[in-house]
């Protein structure tokens, strides 16, 4: 009995210290913004590996998600003779939920895991300690550019996802199933609000980008410096980012759209 209590206390303390380390790490990363402003080249390089390389998977997934939404929405809406609302349905679900959430999940899988593995390996091969020996702060030099690259890329990727998704839905709905093109767009424009829908979606994606980059980089930085430790850290990144994204999405949705 005492043993169980001891274990519980131990686990709690470990989690709390990890959270504390993570918070200090985050503060440290945020102070790195001054270094990035001085050397924007570092940020551009990371924008390439975090953003540009994730571009393809985001656009392809967005296209297919939009097309599936168009197809499924049409089947259900045509039962009520409301095919014209297809545009509203596709755009609302993409802009409010699927755009930010699915692109955050893909981002965690594509870019987050790569970041963790990269940082973890740098730690395992003692490159980070090497930098410290040369009086270069690895958090500011290595990690901060990656963090801000993730923070900048995420809203762009989510906006791309939503746009391609809407176009995919239009392709299936208007092109294949014969929904009226004018009604598709005009109903969408009448129902979707700029600040309610578009801006809230962007805010969501910024929050997700912040959390996903933070988790990925911290897991890499905090990894046990062995090959097994790095592989575990990578797994934890994907799992934790997915949980954090979905959990935060619920909270954000409740806060943003709760009073309707």
């Amino acid at each position: 009995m005492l043993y169980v209590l001891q274990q519980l206390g131990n686990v709690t303390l470990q989690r709390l210290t990890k959270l504390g380390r993570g918070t200090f790490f985050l503060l440290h990363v945020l102070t790195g913004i001054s270094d990035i402003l001085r050397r924007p080249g570092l940020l551009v390089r990371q924008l390439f590996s975090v953003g540009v390389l994730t571009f393809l998977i985001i656009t392809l997934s967005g296209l297919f998600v939009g097309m599936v939404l168009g197809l499924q929405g049409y089947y259900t809406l045509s039962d009520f003779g409301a095919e014209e609302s297809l545009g509203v349905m596709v755009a609302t679900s993409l802009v409010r939920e699927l755009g930010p959430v699915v692109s955050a999940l893909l981002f965690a899988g594509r870019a987050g895991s790569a970041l963790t593995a990269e940082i973890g390996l740098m730690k395992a091969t003692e490159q980070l300690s090497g930098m410290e020996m040369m009086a270069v702060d690895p958090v500011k030099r290595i990690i901060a550019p990656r963090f801000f690259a993730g923070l900048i890329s995420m809203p762009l990727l989510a906006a791309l996802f939503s746009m391609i998704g809407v176009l995919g839905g239009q392709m299936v709905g208007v092109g294949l199933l014969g929904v009226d093109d004018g009604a598709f767009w005009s109903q969408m424009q009448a129902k979707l609000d700029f600040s309610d829908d578009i801006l809230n979606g962007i805010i969501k994606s910024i929050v997700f980008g912040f959390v996903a980059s933070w988790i990925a980089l911290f897991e890499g930085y905090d990894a046990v410096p062995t090959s097994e430790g790095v592989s575990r850290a990578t797994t934890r990144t994907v799992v934790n980012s997915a949980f954090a994204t979905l959990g935060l999405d619920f909270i954000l949705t409740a806060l943003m759209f709760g009073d309707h």
Partner: protein
Amino acid sequence: MQHSKTLDTLVGLFVASGIVAFLFLSMQVSNLSTFVEPEGYLVSARFDNVGGLKVKSPVTVAGVRIGRISAISFDAQQFQAVVKMRIEKKYNCLPDDSSASIFTAGLLGEQYVSLEPGGSEDCLKNGSEIDITQSALVLEEIIGQFLFKKAGESH
């Protein structure tokens, strides 16, 4: 990875496409393009019941949108709803004895104000009030009246 022009170009393309996507979402998908109202004049009308009318609902004549609702308020003295609508400037000579009704687009669609032009020579101006109005039909009231009538017939 070396810092190169290609890298800069690719990153620039990525950021530009993200911004294009954002602009597309704001202009084509949402109502931002209709947000900037063309200049117009304000006309008000009093209704006993506005039903589900909302700010930014359309104002139409003969089915064509000529403006939008800009405000809905309640007059505590006369217990009526005061609806202010902004009508586009190019429609500057609607007869001042026009009547306003609240209709529903389709069975479950949104509600809008329809103006029926009268025969007067004078025009509606900024700040004028439409006197003849017809309130929104509330489904429950109609069903209630129908049931009441049925009950009366059966006796």
